[in-house]
């Protein structure tokens, strides 16, 4: 959808506009953290994992137990949302997550800067692996919708006719703004933000990554917000109590 488009503005007039272009859409880039002084426990973990022979093997075994505990924690938190999975399947997922997290942690050992305790640092790898596997399992065999369901499904209306009209105009402008995004931005925005597809599931289907898809989502959101503001809708006043 790269050609000029004809649409209806949020205030009732017909406009001819160019496709929405993303601009000034860079993420914040954090400063590189300084190397922190390691606490005794973290230093012992690094020493043992960098050792050789039986000491190394024992440390890897302890690390795997730690990761398995974190993966099981995540599985237990999500279990109510996965009623179709049996206990042994969930155990298998936790074990796979711990195994994959172990590989990640050992490969990234030199990137641990001591900004947190070593155990907190490794937990996040196990939680990530377990969460991603569970999201993918929950969507296994399901179609990933990248088009809006019916817009009429939204709850509109307010205390009076003026509010109702405003919301209908706003909804129309949102639809116009989404239509003006690039096809990739539109598909990602609709799937993730409107249809609730988990980002890891979409990344797998599109052979992409979470980071790349979130950048696309971010750019699409900024472009949509800019379009709405150009149409006279002030986004700063909508969601004061909704975030």
């Amino acid at each position, binding site marked *: 959808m790269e050609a000029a488009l004809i649409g209806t503005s949020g205030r009732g007039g017909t406009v001819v506009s160019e496709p929405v272009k993303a601009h000034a859409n860079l*993420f*914040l*880039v*954090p400063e590189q*953290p300084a190397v922190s002084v390691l606490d005794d426990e973290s230093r012992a973990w690094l020493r043992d994992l960098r050792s050789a022979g039986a000491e190394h093997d024992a440390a890897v075994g302890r690390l795997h137990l730690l990761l398995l505990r*974190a993966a099981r*924690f*995540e599985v237990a*938190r999500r279990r109510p949302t996965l009623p179709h999975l049996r206990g042994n399947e969930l155990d298998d997922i936790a074990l796979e997550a711990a195994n994959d997290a172990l590989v990640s942690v050992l490969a990234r050992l030199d990137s641990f800067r001591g*900004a*947190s*305790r070593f155990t*907190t*640092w490794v*937990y*996040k790898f196990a*939680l*990530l692996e377990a*969460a991603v596997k569970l*999201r993918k399992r929950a969507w296994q065999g399901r179609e990933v919708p990248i088009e809006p369901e019916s817009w009429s*499904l*939204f*709850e*509109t209306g307010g205390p009076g006719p003026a509010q109702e009209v405003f*919301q209908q105009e*706003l*909804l129309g402008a*949102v639809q116009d703004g*989404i239509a003006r995004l690039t096809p990739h931005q539109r598909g990602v*925005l609709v799937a993730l*933000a*409107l249809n609730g597809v*988990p*980002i*890891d599931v979409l990344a797998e289907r599109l052979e992409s990554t*979470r*980071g790349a898809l*979130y*950048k696309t*989502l*971010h750019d699409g*959101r900024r472009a*949509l*917000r800019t379009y*709405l503001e150009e149409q006279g809708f002030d*986004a*700063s006043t*909508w*969601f004061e109590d*909704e*975030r």
Partner: protein
Amino acid sequence: MQRPDLKQSLGRLLGPREPEIGCDDCFDQLDAYVELELAGGDTEHAFPGLRAHLEGCPACREEHESLRALVGGEQAL
């Protein structure tokens, strides 16, 4: 079935208003963020854009909640 609320749906569509970091930087900083958060520190100042990212990214938000619950539970023991 209750229909989705327009404002909430628009909130998800438009994402956070504030500048945010990306998913990879969020993952890199999440452990230190959670420890400072649990200690009652100033996470806004120490990790600019991370809270905004958690608002906009459901997956990172879920993983933040899990890490906070896991580490916080250990500290409570």
